[in-house]
């Protein structure tokens, strides 16, 4: 932790270098062919329920689905597995994977320390905390039956690793704190022209008049920002209003 100020200064300088890239950024919406891989950020409890409802109507072309969870979130994992099992009954080629990243912000953590912990979860791996199975070197996409038979869940260390290995075409998030480092990293990779990902942020149905903190941040970084109440559409004109979709 003694090198922390140096690291922060280096990061700030690095972000200054990105300013010309941001100004020259032309969003090329190139034609992509199905299947489209999808990264879903599942937060705690209610957020997971909402995002699984959103995914319920997606067609077969959105596969494989990579779910990203915060560590120590058991309930969301159970919900996701049951959702994918039901999906595997209708679509035979259904594939998904589960990854975990360190929590970027504890509940009611102060703003300044949240910035630092978010940066930490973006960049650093935690080789001591996360175990790696020696024979699973690359991200393998498993079908639902194989997933149940795996003895231990593979855990990459950091968000950048997850993005690099999953390489999704689309990132879908709902508003938990976990989605901020994921979307910011994807935005960074897109600026550096490494991998262009479409970021879709769907604001939660609870948000009628104000945006959540993640929404306020990601309003400027997402490609499509979907709100579910018309008051928000008036306040944030760049957003998309589709009515109530949950």
């Amino acid at each position: 932790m003694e090198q922390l100020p140096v690291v922060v200064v280096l990061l700030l300088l690095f972000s200054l270098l990105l300013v010309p890239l941001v100004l020259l950024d032309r969003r090329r919406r190139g034609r992509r062919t199905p299947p489209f891989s999808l990264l879903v950020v599942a937060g705690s409890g209610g957020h997971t329920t909402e995002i699984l409802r959103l995914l319920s109507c997606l067609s077969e072309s959105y596969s494989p689905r990579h779910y990203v969870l915060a560590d120590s979130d058991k309930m969301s994992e159970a919900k996701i597995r049951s959702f994918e099992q039901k999906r595997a009954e209708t679509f035979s080629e259904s594939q998904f994977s589960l990854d975990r990243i360190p929590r970027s912000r504890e509940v009611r953590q102060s703003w300044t320390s949240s910035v630092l912990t978010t940066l930490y979860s973006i960049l650093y791996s935690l080789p001591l905390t996360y175990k790696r199975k020696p024979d699973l070197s690359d991200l393998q996409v498993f079908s639902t039956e194989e997933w149940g038979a795996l003895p231990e869940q593979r855990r990459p260390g950091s968000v950048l690793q997850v993005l690099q290995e999953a390489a999704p075409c689309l990132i879908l998030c709902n508003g938990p704190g976990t989605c901020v480092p994921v979307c910011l990293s994807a935005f960074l990779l897109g600026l550096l022209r490494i991998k262009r990902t479409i970021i879709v942020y769907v604001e939660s149905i609870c948000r009628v008049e104000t945006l959540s903190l993640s929404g306020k941040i990601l309003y400027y970084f997402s490609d499509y920002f979907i709100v579910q109440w018309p008051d928000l559409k008036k306040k944030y004109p760049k957003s998309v209003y589709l009515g109530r979709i949950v």
Partner: protein
Amino acid sequence: REGRSVARGGKGRRQRYRGSRELGTPLTHPLYPRLIPFIPPPPIPPFFSISLFIPPPCISPLFPTILPHPRYPLHSPLHSPVPCPQALQSRGYQKLVLQVGRSSLPQPQPQPSSSPAVAVEAFRFKDSLAEDLQGADLVISHAGAGSCLETLEKGKPLIVVINDKLMDNHQLELAKQLHRDGYVLYCNCSTLVETLQSMDLSALKPFPPGQPEKFASFLDKVFGLQ
């Protein structure tokens, strides 16, 4: 030097700079166990976060059940009476099912012999409240989005109780909006009794379900699949 600062009750030099991640949640904070005996529970009214499933007596032969709302931590004084039994009886409700969560269970009250007692059943937590919701005729709940939407989708009348002391902002917004649109009734802890006495459940509109198909078609348009 270090011994002196620790002996005064302060943290040692190494301990002063522990980040919030190491301290963990309040329950694992090193100081919390020592402070528990000295902190009284906050005085929140006991009948907050109760879901009453109560049918008008002429419509359903089943006993009305009350469904308390899940996952809501509720602190209440040690002796929490059964909430507003007279209001319930006056509207014809016969049974109350309470989900109590982490607060203390309701104590049995002596009922006047003339009026029939409201049967009370209480439990702490359940994995899924779907079957209780199905058998209920009225739900009284806190303003969580999941609880409100789950109840409204089953088509049950809902009274949302807002806890002023907690001031959970996004819950309040959703509850107010649903009330403005006429889908739920809305009250405070203190006005719950009057709301129960004067409520008109037929004025509530049926709740249209959300449409995730619109989202799927939006994504298809983005990727050029349509």
